[in-house]
C-alpha cells in the first residue's frame, strides 16, 4: 500500500525547520557582563577569544521538540493518503501531429515524462495510451510504462498540416474512460479543448521564415517558377536561397525579409531541366526550408472535331477556337488517339459515339420561334455557380430523351443541356442549335464545356507531372480493370534525401495523398509512369510560431487523482493530539530552564534596627 500526499504544498511547512534552527542559532547574542577575574580567563586557552557571530547549535529538548512539532505539522498539512492496492487509472496522450510540433519535440521528451510519472504515482497501476491527432483510429503506444511511451514519442514524426484534433481526442477519451486523464500535447495555448482534455502546451515563439508557396508558369517558351518567401516574425530576417538540380548546386543568393513581410523569388527551368529543388538556409522549422519542383506536364486531352461534310467552315472555326483555347487540350484528327469527340446529332442516324463526347444539334430550318418557358438550372457540378438564365435559343429539333439522361438546364419542359451515358462514356448534349443561340457569348457555355473536359481528363490514365502541396490527396487515375497490376509508389525526401517505395493494390491508389514533408514522388503501374509529383510545404499556419506558447493545464490533477485512488490517513486525530502534546512540552521546557537559571534572591540585609 503506497503512500501519497493530497496536498504537497503542505511540505512548505518544512521551512519551519531551518527557521527554528536559525532562531536557535541567533537567539543567544553576546551577553555583557562585568567581571573581576578576567586575569584568570586570560591565563586559559586562547580558544575562547573572539567569540562567534552565530551561537553554535546546541542540542536541547525544546529544539528537538520544536523540530518534531514541525514534522508532525508537515505530516498533517500534506494530507497523507494511503493508495488503494488495486487502483488503476487510464491516461491517454494525444500528440498534435501538425508539422509545427517538430520544433517542440525535444521539449515534449523533456517535460512529458515528468508529468506522466507524477500522475502515475497516484495509483498502483497506470494504463497509458499514445495517439496521433492526425489519425482517427489506432494508437502509437498502449502499455503501463512511461519509458515505453516515450520511446514511441521518440519515433513519432509530426509533419501534418493544420487539422481538427477533435476526432482523435474523442477516441482518446473513449480509451481513457470518463474518469481517465486525457492530455493533448500541442504547441499553442488553446483555451477550450473538447472531450474534457487537459492542455499540455510545450510551444515557444520562434523566428521562422520559409517558403510559403510555389507556382510555375509557361512564358515565352520557358517555364518559370516563382516562390514566396515569408517572414513570420516581427524582426527582419535574412536568408540565403539556392537551387540544386541533380548534382549541380546553383549560386547562393541572399534575401532580406521585412518583419511579417514576404518576398518573391523566381527563376526559370533550364532547357532540358525538368526537376530542381529550392533551398533556403535552414532554421529550427525545416519543413518550409526546402521545396522540390518539377516542370509541370498536365495530362493532355485529345479532342476530335466534327469532320463530316455538313459541317460548315464557320462551325469548324468556332469549334477550333473554342476547344483549342482550353488548357491541356489538343485537337486531333486521329480517331484512335482521341479522348473526346465533338459531334452533331443526326436525326437520320441518331446513334451516338461510344466515347466521351460533346453533342450539338443542327437544325436546317431557317426560322424558328425562340424557345420560351421558365429556364431552370439543376444542381450539378457542371452548372454550379454558372448563369444560364440569359440563354436565348430558337426552337430546333430535339434529341429524344432516354431513360438515364441527366438534365442540367431546362427551358420549360425541354432539357436544353443534359448528360447521357455511363461515367466513362459520358456525353454532354446541347439540345439546341448553337448557331441560333447566344450561347457562344455566355461564360457558362465555355466554362461548362471546360468542366466537362476536365471531368473526362480525370478519368484518363496518362502520365502527368505536377507540383503539389504536402498532404493533399493526389487525384491520379490508374488502371482499375480486373487484373490490373498494383501501383508502385516511390519517393525521395528533400530534407534528408531519404528514399523509399511502397506497393499498393490499384483499387487503393485513390486513397494516396501527397507526402507530409517535402519530397519528390512517383507513381507507376506496371512500369508505366502515371504521376511525378513534387510536394512542397505550404501550410502557413504551421509555419507561424508567433502564437506558440507553453502552458500545462495540470493544476490540481495530482490531488484529484490521489483523492480518487486513495484513502485518507485515519490517524490524523492522534497526530493532532501528538502535535499539541509536543508543543505543550516544548513550552514547558522553554520556561522551566528559565526559572532554574534565575539567581537566588539576594539575602535580605539586616536593617540597623534588627542588628544586634
Amino acid at each position, binding site marked *: 500500500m503506497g503512500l501519497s500526499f493530497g496536498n504537497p504544498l503542505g511540505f512548505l511547512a518544512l521551512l519551519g525547520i531551518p527557521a527554528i534552527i536559525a532562531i536557535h542559532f541567533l537567539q543567544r547574542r553576546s551577553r555583557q557582563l562585568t567581571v*573581576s577575574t578576567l586575569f584568570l*580567563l586570560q591565563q586559559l*586557552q586562547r580558544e575562547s577569544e573572539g567569540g562567534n557571530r552565530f551561537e553554535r547549535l546546541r542540542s536541547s529538548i525544546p529544539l528537538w521538540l520544536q523540530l518534531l512539532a514541525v514534522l508532525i505539522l508537515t505530516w498533517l498539512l500534506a494530507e497523507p493518503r494511503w493508495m488503494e492496492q488495486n487502483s488503476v487509472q487510464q491516461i491517454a496522450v494525444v500528440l498534435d501531429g501538425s508539422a509545427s510540433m517538430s520544433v517542440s519535440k525535444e521539449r515534449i521528451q523533456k517535460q512529458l515524462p515528468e508529468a506522466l510519472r507524477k500522475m502515475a504515482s497516484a495509483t498502483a497501476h497506470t494504463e497509458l495510451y499514445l495517439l496521433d491527432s492526425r489519425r482517427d483510429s489506432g494508437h502509437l503506444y498502449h502499455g503501463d510504462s512511461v519509458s515505453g511511451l516515450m520511446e514511441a514519442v521518440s519515433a513519432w514524426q509530426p509533419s501534418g498540416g493544420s487539422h481538427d484534433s477533435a476526432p482523435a481526442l474523442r477516441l482518446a477519451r473513449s480509451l481513457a474512460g470518463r474518469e481517465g486523464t486525457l492530455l493533448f500535447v500541442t504547441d499553442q495555448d488553446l483555451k477550450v479543448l473538447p472531450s474534457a482534455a487537459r492542455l499540455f502546451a510545450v510551444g515557444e515563439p520562434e523566428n521562422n521564415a520559409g517558403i510559403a508557396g510555389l507556382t510555375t508558369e509557361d512564358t515565352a517558351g520557358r517555364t518559370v517558377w516563382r516562390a514566396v518567401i515569408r517572414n513570420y516574425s516581427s524582426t527582419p530576417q535574412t536568408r540565403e536561397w539556392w537551387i540544386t538540380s541533380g548534382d549541380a548546386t546553383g549560386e547562393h543568393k541572399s534575401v532580406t525579409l521585412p518583419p511579417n513581410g514576404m518576398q518573391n523569388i523566381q527563376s526559370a527551368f533550364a532547357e532540358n531541366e525538368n526537376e530542381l529543388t529550392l533551398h533556403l538556409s535552414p532554421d529550427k522549422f525545416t519543413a518550409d526550408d526546402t521545396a522540390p519542383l518539377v516542370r509541370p506536364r498536365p495530362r493532355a486531352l485529345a479532342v476530335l472535331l466534327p469532320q463530316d461534310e455538313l459541317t460548315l467552315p464557320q462551325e469548324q472555326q468556332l469549334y477550333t477556337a473554342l476547344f483549342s483555347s482550353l488548357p491541356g487540350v489538343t485537337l486531333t484528327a486521329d480517331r484512335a488517339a482521341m479522348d473526346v469527340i465533338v459531334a452533331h446529332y443526326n436525326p437520320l442516324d441518331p446513334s451516338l459515339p461510344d466515347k466521351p463526347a460533346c453533342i450539338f444539334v443542327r437544325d436546317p430550318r431557317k426560322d424558328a420561334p425562340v424557345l420560351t418557358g421558365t429556364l431552370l438550372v439543376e444542381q450539378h457540378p457542371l452548372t454550379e455557380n454558372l448563369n444560364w438564365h440569359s440563354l436565348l435559343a430558337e426552337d430546333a429539333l430535339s434529341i429524344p430523351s432516354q431513360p438515364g439522361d441527366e438534365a442540367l438546364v431546362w427551358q420549360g419542359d425541354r432539357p436544353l443541356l443534359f448528360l447521357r451515358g455511363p461515367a466513362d462514356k459520358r456525353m454532354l448534349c446541347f439540345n439546341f442549335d448553337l448557331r441560333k443561340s447566344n450561347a457562344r457569348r455566355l461564360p457558362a457555355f465555355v466554362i461548362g464545356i471546360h468542366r466537362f473536359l476536365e471531368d473526362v481528363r480525370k478519368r484518363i490514365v496518362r502520365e502527368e507531372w505536377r507540383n503539389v502541396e504536402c498532404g493533399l490527396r493526389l487525384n491520379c487515375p490508374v488502371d482499375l480493370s480486373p487484373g490490373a497490376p498494383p501501383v508502385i509508389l516511390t519517393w525521395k525526401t528533400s530534407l534528408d534525401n531519404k528514399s523509399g517505395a511502397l506497393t499498393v493494390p490499384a483499387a487503393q491508389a485513390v486513397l494516396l495523398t501527397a507526402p507530409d514533408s517535402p519530397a519528390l514522388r512517383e507513381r507507376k503501374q506496371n512500369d508505366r509512369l502515371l504521376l511525378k509529383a513534387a510536394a512542397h510545404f505550404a501550410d502557413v499556419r504551421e509555419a507561424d510560431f508567433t502564437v506558440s506558447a507553453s502552458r500545462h493545464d495540470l493544476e490540481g490533477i495530482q490531488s484529484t487523482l490521489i483523492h480518487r485512488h486513495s484513502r485518507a490517513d485515519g490517524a490524523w486525530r492522534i497526530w493532532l493530539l501528538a502535535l499539541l502534546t509536543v508543543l505543550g512540552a516544548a513550552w514547558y521546557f522553554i520556561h522551566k530552564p528559565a526559572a532554574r537559571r534565575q539567581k537566588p534572591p539576594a539575602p535580605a540585609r*539586616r536593617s*540597623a534596627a534588627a542588628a544586634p
Partner: protein
Amino acid sequence: MPAALPPSLLRECHVRARGWAGLFRLPLRQRVWRGGTGDFMGRGTGASLDFQDHRAYAPGDDPRHINWQAYARTGNYSMKLFREEVRPLIDIVLDVSPSMFFTPEKATRSTELFYFAVEGALRAGTSPAVFAVALGWQRLLPQEAVLSHRWAEQLPDGPLPSAAPPDLSRVPLRAQSLRLFISDLLFAGAPEHFTALLSTRQGRPVVLAPYCQAESDPDWDGNMEFIDAEALSHHPRRVEPALLKRYRDAYGRHFELWKTAAQRHGLVMARVPAEPEFPAALQQEALRIGAVEPWA
C-alpha cells in the same frame, strides 16, 4: 568616588557592622601585644593583677610591689612583677580596587567587613590606623572620615590596570600590630610576596577576603562580552562548558596558592562569601580558623 559606594550604603553597613561587632570580635586574645595601657596582655610587666615573676629589688623600684612575705622569710627584698596590659596596635588595610565593589553584594560585604574591622578595633579600645590601597596608590584614612562615611570621596576614580596588585610595601604598617587586610585577593602575582609584606615587623596579619558567587560559580554560557571591572575594557569571549570548568579550577587554584602562602607565613586568611548574611558568612570559615572570635 566609586559609584558603588554611596554614603547611604556606607552608613547602612556601618550601622550593621556596629551590631555585629557585639557578636564577634577581632582575634586579639591569642597572643601578647605591644602598645599603650589597655585591656590586652602585653609583652612586658605592668600594673595588672596577673602575677608574672619575681626578681631582686633594685633601687628605684616601686616599694608597693616589694614582696613583704618573702622578705619575712628570707630577709631579702624581692619584687613581685605583674603582667603588663596594653592596647594592641591595629592596622586596617582596605583594598579599594574596583573589583571589591563590582557587584552590589560584594560591595556591601566588603564595606561591612571594613566597618566590622573598624568597630572591632574601637571595641578593643584601640584607635586603628586605616589605610586604603589600590595599585600604587595608598592613603591613610582619618578616623573621622571613616566614621563620618566620607572616606570614599578620597578614593581614586577611573579605570586601573587590570588585576594590578596593591603596593603593600608603601603602607606604613606598625610593628607587632594586628594587620587586617580586607581584599578579594583578585590580582596577579605570587601570594608569598604579599604574605611576607603583611608579616613584617612581627605583625599578625589577618586577611578577610570577600567574594561573590559571580566570581566563584559564574553562569557564563556562550558568547560573552566581559567588561573588566578595573580597566573597564571589553573582552569578547566564547565560553563553552569545558572552558567554564577550567575557569573554576583556576579560581580554586588561585586561592589554594594564597592559603598555602598564608600558612607558610602564619597568616590567617578567611574567605567571606557575599551572599549569606554576615554572621553566617563569618561562620563558614572566618570563625572556624580564628580570623574572628565570638564574644561569649
